[in-house]
């Protein structure tokens, strides 16, 4: 497909008369650019065809099953878009909230933020929430900065270490390191849960916090989590809950009840806001009693007369994003929560776990399942059997799925599982879709035995064939 600039023809443009082109020059000559902007000169119809053509090449959840593990690529209900496009919200200027005289003009938006923070705190079993962080890793950073501030305030100067399991998302150790902690890795046990003895051995008075994902990236609930929390608190170490996999326990289990002190929510995962291509995301955080005074500020409070106002907590780590984060993303999440209600949210978790177990049950005889035949919201398989037989790798299986109309699952993550295929169907997929996906996987497993070379050529039906990712990584060239 040609770039739109290659379709440009001098002088071509829209056929509709544009009164703005008659406007008076708004700036003095000294501020005007000499050359016209290098915009493509194409007709309106060509623009429409160009971008419609591009959108058809999109491989998204609106058109394809997208079982990307640990990413929760669930369907984005259109009712979320409806509220997020209401002009009463889209026409707001964020400074109306920060200017006291203008605050009356955006009380509705402040009410949404205030209410959503309370919803999230309730879902997390936490005391209070904050919508500022713009993405999951940003929420992690906010969380570990609060843990650091907590220890500073208490004079716990020896607290230098963050414990992170080896199955964690790479953002966990990165966030801890950015906040100034050194990271101590805790290995997984053969059953896929944290190695409890190794955790106990790693926990000493220098440990400031423990970052856990539960269920973890092996798709397993950490059954020792309450004991881990108890032991950590004995050392005055705080517990961080990485909310990447919250979809598995939504409305069923509250991290705060398990002993976690701080958590983030990926609104773009669990709460169905649009996801991918770099955002906008939202990594809202919530904290328990120990950390409430450290939340990012300013926060929104409701006065006795019902008006919403701003307040910065006593020991706040300060603003970590402009204004209130991705407000329209938060509004979509608010809509999702209101649309499901207290009774609907647990059903999300139930269906997500059921779907993942269905996929695992159908595929475990065709691919190695390193952690047995039960999982939470995602299942981990791998291609070690196919690699050992000299057939194909996980990457070939992922590429072959594209030709069969499915997005690839996450591959080669978590790092603890060689040749990993991590499948998260989410709750919004039907049994028919899951069956079609499983049948494609089984067909690929058979083809790996019969004709592995055919799979190594995949994909052959996409706009481009197998991409040379090594060349792309080694010879990165972003200029054009």
């Amino acid at each position, binding site marked *: 497909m040609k770039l739109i600039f290659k379709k440009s023809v001098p002088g071509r443009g829209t056929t509709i008369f544009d009164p703005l082109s008659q406007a008076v020059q708004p700036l003095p000559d000294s501020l005007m650019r000499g050359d016209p902007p290098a915009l493509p000169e194409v007709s309106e119809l060509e623009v429409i065809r160009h971008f419609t053509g591009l959108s058809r090449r999109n491989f998204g959840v609106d058109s394809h099953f997208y079982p990307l593990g640990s990413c929760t690529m669930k369907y984005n209900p259109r009712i979320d878009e409806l509220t997020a496009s209401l002009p009463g919200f889209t026409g707001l200027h964020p400074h109306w909230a920060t200017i006291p005289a203008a605050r009356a003009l955006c009380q509705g938006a402040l009410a949404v933020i205030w209410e959503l923070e309370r919803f999230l705190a309730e879902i997390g079993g936490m005391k209070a929430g904050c919508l500022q962080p713009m993405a999951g890793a940003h929420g992690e950073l906010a969380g570990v900065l609060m843990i650091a501030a907590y220890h500073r305030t208490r004079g716990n100067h020896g607290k230098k270490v963050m414990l992170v399991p080896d199955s964690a998302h790479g953002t966990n150790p990165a966030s801890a390191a950015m906040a100034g902690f050194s990271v101590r890795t805790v290995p997984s046990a053969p059953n896929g849960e944290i190695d409890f003895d190794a955790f106990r051995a790693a926990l000493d008075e220098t440990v400031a916090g423990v970052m856990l994902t539960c269920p973890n990236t092996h798709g397993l609930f950490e059954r020792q989590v309450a004991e881990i929390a108890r032991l950590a608190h004995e050392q005055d170490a705080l517990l961080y809950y990485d909310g990447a996999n919250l979809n598995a326990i939504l409305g069923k289990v509250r991290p705060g009840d398990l002993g976690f002190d701080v958590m983030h929510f990926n609104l773009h995962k669990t709460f169905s806001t649009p996801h991918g291509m770099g955002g906008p995301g939202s990594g809202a955080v919530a904290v328990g009693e120990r950390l409430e005074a450290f939340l990012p500020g300013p926060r929104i409070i409701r006065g006795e007369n019902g008006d919403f106002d701003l307040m910065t907590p006593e020991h706040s780590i300060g603003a970590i994003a402009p204004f209130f984060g991705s407000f329209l993303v938060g509004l979509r999440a608010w809509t999702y929560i209101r649309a499901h209600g207290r009774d609907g949210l647990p059903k999300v978790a139930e269906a997500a776990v059921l779907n993942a177990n269905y996929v695992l049950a159908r595929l475990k005889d065709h691919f190695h399942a390193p952690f047995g035949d039960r999982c939470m919201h995602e299942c981990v398989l791998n291609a070690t059997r196919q690699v050992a037989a000299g057939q194909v790798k996980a990457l070939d299986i992922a590429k072959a799925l594209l030709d069969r109309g499915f997005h690839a699952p996450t591959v080669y993550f978590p*790092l603890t599982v060689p040749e990993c295929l991590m499948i998260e169907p989410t709750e919004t997929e039907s049994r028919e879709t899951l069956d079609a996906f499983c049948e494609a996987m089984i067909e690929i497993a058979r083809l790996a035995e019969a004709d592995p070379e055919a799979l190594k050529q995949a994909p052959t039906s996409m706009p481009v064939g197998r991409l040379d990712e*090594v060349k792309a990584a*080694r010879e990165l060239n972003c200029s054009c």
Partner: protein
Amino acid sequence: MNPESLRYSDEYEWIGESNGVYVVGITDFAQEKLGDITYVELPAVGKKIARGEEAAIVESVKAASDVFAPVSGTVIEVNYALENDPGLINRDPFGRGWIFKLDGINQKEYEELMSYIAYRAFCQGES
């Protein structure tokens, strides 16, 4: 270098003596697991590092991994050829894919590392 004469850490580094200094790299098993290596971050020459400390970073299309110092010592030379051709580690992990050289190493730590035979058995348990 001849893999049979080297010593090995449980983090898949090898170390061997050559002309009085100790050369460090990652093993064939490690490069195979990582896949095509796309970037190597080398340690600073002159840096003193302790056993188990992060010395270099190796990135592949699959993951970024730390390379740890298998023994304590001082970095006296690094393999700048890896900056332009990180695939040397894939093609020749025990030779032209070496990563850094150490001097003044802790001899006791060196003796504690695995032999070739012990390392082979270790990898079989891991794969």
